[in-house]
């Protein structure tokens, strides 16, 4: 961080403190270090999600800050059962987020319908039927450690994404 901040300062070149980097890895580094999430919870997974945000698990150490608006956020964590009534709202929230945007599907319900897979007439069987999902976190509900693992997977994905390829 300290070295990268000095990239703007021509003085630093004279003292020898500079780094070489590609634009791609610099952008990816910036993106993965400040994944702002949308403050948004749907069902019981949201309780574990809140625990992951609180001090014991402290998601903020990865630069994850809950934001009150989809227009501020980089990632939406679908934490819980997506009913058909909610699915249209989830889709709209996703569309309101600025690019680049990422989706973590948390828990069995939003992965595939969970316990509602057979008789849940009102449940969307997987949020990937409405919006594209980057990381699936299994569990019912997943423990906060599992969500942190999902977040680290997302960081890996962001680290290796390319500007030239879509």
């Amino acid at each position: 961080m300290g070295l990268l901040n000095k990239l703007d300062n021509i003085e630093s070149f004279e003292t020898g403190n500079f780094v070489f980097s590609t634009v791609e890895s610099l952008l990816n580094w910036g993106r993965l270090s400040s994944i702002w999430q949308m403050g948004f919870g749907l069902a019981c997974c949201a309780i574990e999600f809140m625990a992951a945000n609180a001090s014991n698990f402290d998601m903020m150490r990865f630069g994850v800050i809950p934001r009150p608006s989809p227009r501020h956020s980089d990632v939406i964590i679908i934490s819980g059962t997506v009913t058909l009534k909610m699915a249209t709202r989830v889709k709209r929230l996703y569309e309101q987020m600025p690019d680049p945007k990422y989706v973590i599907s948390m828990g069995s319900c939003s992965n595939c319908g969970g316990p509602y897979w057979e008789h849940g007439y009102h449940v969307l069987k997987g949020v990937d039927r409405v919006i594209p999902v980057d990381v699936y976190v299994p569990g019912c509900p997943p423990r906060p450690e599992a969500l942190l693992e999902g977040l680290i997977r997302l960081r890996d994905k962001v680290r290796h994404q390319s500007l030239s390829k879509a």
Partner: protein
Amino acid sequence: MNAVPIEAIHADLLSKFSDMIGDLRREPAETGTAYIVVKAEWIRDVCLYLRDDPHYLMNNLNLLSCVDFREIKGQEYQGQLGVVYHMSSLQPVGDEWKTIHSVAIRSYVPLSDPHIPSVARVWRTADWHEREGYDMFGIIFDGHPDLRRILLPSDWEGYPLRKDYKTPDYYNGMKVPY
């Protein structure tokens, strides 16, 4: 105010409303909760009487629930929809509020024309309960102030807790079955 057993309430209702009141029954026969069967057209009057009569003062509607009885074999209500009202009298005793007595009332409505008077004007609690009954079973509560769906989206088709309900294949372009 003294607790009144359900047998006494049933006898009193029989004397006031005569043949609009059915049997006092228990299901299962010995251990189940007792309920009084009331003709659907009279449910609002019976509820109003139980709420306002100084012997009962049923000021609290615990629960209003709907049942689809169509697959219950060998009963006179087979093939009908039912509405069950659980009400109780909640009164101050010393420093605290206690349930003095309670009663369960059941009404049957035909599947082909499920109309029943609303009790939303008797207890405000019934407002949302009746909307849920309409949402899930399609029972029309006549006289309800705002009868529309409460849980499902307003453009939903069908009544999901009816026994013959089929899950739709698509809802607004979203595939529903697994």
